[in-house]
């Protein structure tokens, strides 16, 4: 039992299962998945479809947090990427042309990568605290998105573009496939190569890693760039799903949700060890929460209250200090999860 509850994925998985069970009690057919008109259909598929952008961003965020950083600008990148793609497509004579859409998508992702590069260089080269370095883009980015759209919502009518966020491939939502591919690639890259270990080393101590010969600066820039590209893909999905680019509201507070997903998943904000699987679980927890609130008929505006409660509960459960005080652990017993137990001094500096 102890080994089960001590596993780092136990608490996020438990929260997710409890939430799904609660849904089954309220709505008996919640877990059923059917094929209708060649598409998979059901609440679970909805959770995956609407959760895909959040999963993507959270995966990118995990890499950044693993290096001991944080990226506040992802919400702004979501808005910029969607705005640029829709702007390009709306300017074409034939909005449905596949090459045109590909160019627009490529440009949007390219710009996202440049923005990530900018963040990474500020952090790794200029040595600015990640939270401030990315705050710049968070503040300015939404202005840039509105600059691209001239402050209006840009509507597009392009079937190929619609595929990204609202289409289906082999009965499965295309967005879910994209997210799955990115998660799989990221998982392979960090666990089948040394990349994951190097990221954790940098998160543990960037200077020490550099001294032992890890190219920590380059890897940090890579982490921020990957995060921004993930946010860019998410921005394409979101704008494609509603066929509109909204520079003001697209991706609003997405950075906070993504950071929450990472923390709920069990990766500490102080950097070091990280878990991609936990992050995916965390993102699913957040999305399930939103879906639950919609299906149970609670006024959707109160989602935030539930989110606050879940966040507080999950963070407290994961806090060794809280467990020690509330569950009265024997003094001297080693905390089961050393990752989630940053010293007070660390918390101080990083956050």
């Amino acid at each position, binding site marked *: 039992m102890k080994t089960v509850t001590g596993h780092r994925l136990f608490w996020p998985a438990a929260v997710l299962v409890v939430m799904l069970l609660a849904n089954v009690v309220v709505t008996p057919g919640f877990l059923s998945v059917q094929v209708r008109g060649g598409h998979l259909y059901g609440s679970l598929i909805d959770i995956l479809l609407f959760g895909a952008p959040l999963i993507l961003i959270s995966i990118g965020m995990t890499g950044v947090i693993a290096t*001991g950083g*944080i990226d506040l600008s992802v919400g702004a990148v979501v808005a910029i990427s969607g705005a640029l793609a829709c702007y390009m497509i709306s300017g074409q004579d034939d909005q449905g042309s596949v090459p045109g859409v590909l160019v627009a998508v490529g440009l949007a992702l390219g710009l996202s990568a440049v923005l990530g590069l900018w963040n990474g260089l500020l952090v790794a080269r*200029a*040595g*600015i*605290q*990640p*939270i*401030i*370095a990315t*705050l*710049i*883009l*968070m*503040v*300015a*980015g*939404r*202005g*840039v998105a*509105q*600059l691209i759209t*001239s*402050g209006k919502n840009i509507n597009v009518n392009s079937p190929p573009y619609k595929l990204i966020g609202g289409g289906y491939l082999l009965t499965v939502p295309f967005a879910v496939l994209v997210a799955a591919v990115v998660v799989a690639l990221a998982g392979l890259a960090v666990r089948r190569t040394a990349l994951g270990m190097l990221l954790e080393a940098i998160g543990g101590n960037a200077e020490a890693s550099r001294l032992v010969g890890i190219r920590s600066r380059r890897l940090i820039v890579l982490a921020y760039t990957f995060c921004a590209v993930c946010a860019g893909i998410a921005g394409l999905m979101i704008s494609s799903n509603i066929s509109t680019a909204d*520079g003001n509201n697209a991706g609003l507070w997405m950075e*906070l949700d993504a*950071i*929450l997903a990472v*923390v709920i998943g069990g990766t500490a*904000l*102080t950097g070091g060890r990280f878990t991609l699987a936990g992050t995916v679980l965390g993102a699913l927890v957040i999305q399930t929460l939103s879906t639950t609130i919609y299906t149970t008929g609670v*006024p959707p*505006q*109160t*989602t*935030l*209250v*539930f*989110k*606050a*409660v879940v*966040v*507080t509960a999950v*963070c*407290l459960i994961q*806090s*060794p*200090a*809280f467990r020690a*005080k509330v569950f009265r652990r024997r003094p001297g017993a080693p905390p089961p999860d050393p990752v989630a*137990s*940053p010293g*007070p*001094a660390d*918390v*101080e*500096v*990083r*956050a």
Partner: protein
Amino acid sequence: MTVLGTRTGVRIRRDHVAVLVTLGLLVAMFTAGSIAYPAFGSGQVVIDLFIDNGFLLVIAIGMTFVILTGGIDLSVGAVAALSAMLCAFLLERWHWPVAVVLPLVLLVGAGIGFAMGYVIHHFEIQPFIATLAGMFLARGLCFVISVNQISIKNPFFTEWAQTRIPLPGDMNLTPTVLIALAVLAAAFWTLHYTRFGRGVYAVGGNAQSALLMGLPVTRIRIGAYVVSGLCSALGGVLFAFYTISASGLHAVGTELDAIAAVVIGGTLLTGGSGYVLGTVLGVMLLGTIQTLLRFQGTLSSWWTRIAIGALLLLFIVLQRLLGSSRPGR
């Protein structure tokens, strides 16, 4: 203490440089504005800056305390919106007297701040996450109280919103400005002339050392969040005076403006170094940008955000170049 410009005989302390640059930029921007638009260079424009940004000033002052201790408070905008909403709801729906509502609202703000500080200190939750939860909670409670905007018709509030205190030279100001200035004076006195204020700097400089020196780190750390919560609640009340309404969508993004103002004002986000007067300059600078754009007329509102971002970059790079007292992380 490291000094610059010793040769010229003018000794400037390093941690004053950022504040002085902000001041210089503010003066330069104002001069440029006055030359371009004759109406800009009047005293009333300066006072309007305070009138329009009074609530932001109060919130940013609270934020300065938290950032000085090395923390951050993302909940300020939401707490301000919540306190405005509570005011509106209790006054308009339950018809409670103003004398009960105002202290109650301030108490709620301080209570939220205390709860966040308690969780941050005792359960070692990162300030970022704990205050994020506080932000979600406060914003959500706004919508639980009322999904729609509530307009305030209470005579005290409407009276207050219309009151203008005449000054010599055809100028006038609102009582809000006086409250904001009173808060500023209180904050300045607290930070520089009380034990608590010294403690705030000490904890931000190095919590471990502060603890070993026997400072009440627990009380100071939690106290900073209480101050921030209180200031946010007061800011929300001032916002309600200003708009005579309350909505769950009010003051969205205020936390970013407040953090930006504090950073532009020269306070280090790592804590331990900075001045509340710098924060005032930061708020004024943000306000001046908006006023300039309004006078200019053709540039759209989103340029404000881009300009704030550019300013943030400028000041952060400046702080890097000046070599802050501690290595940036």
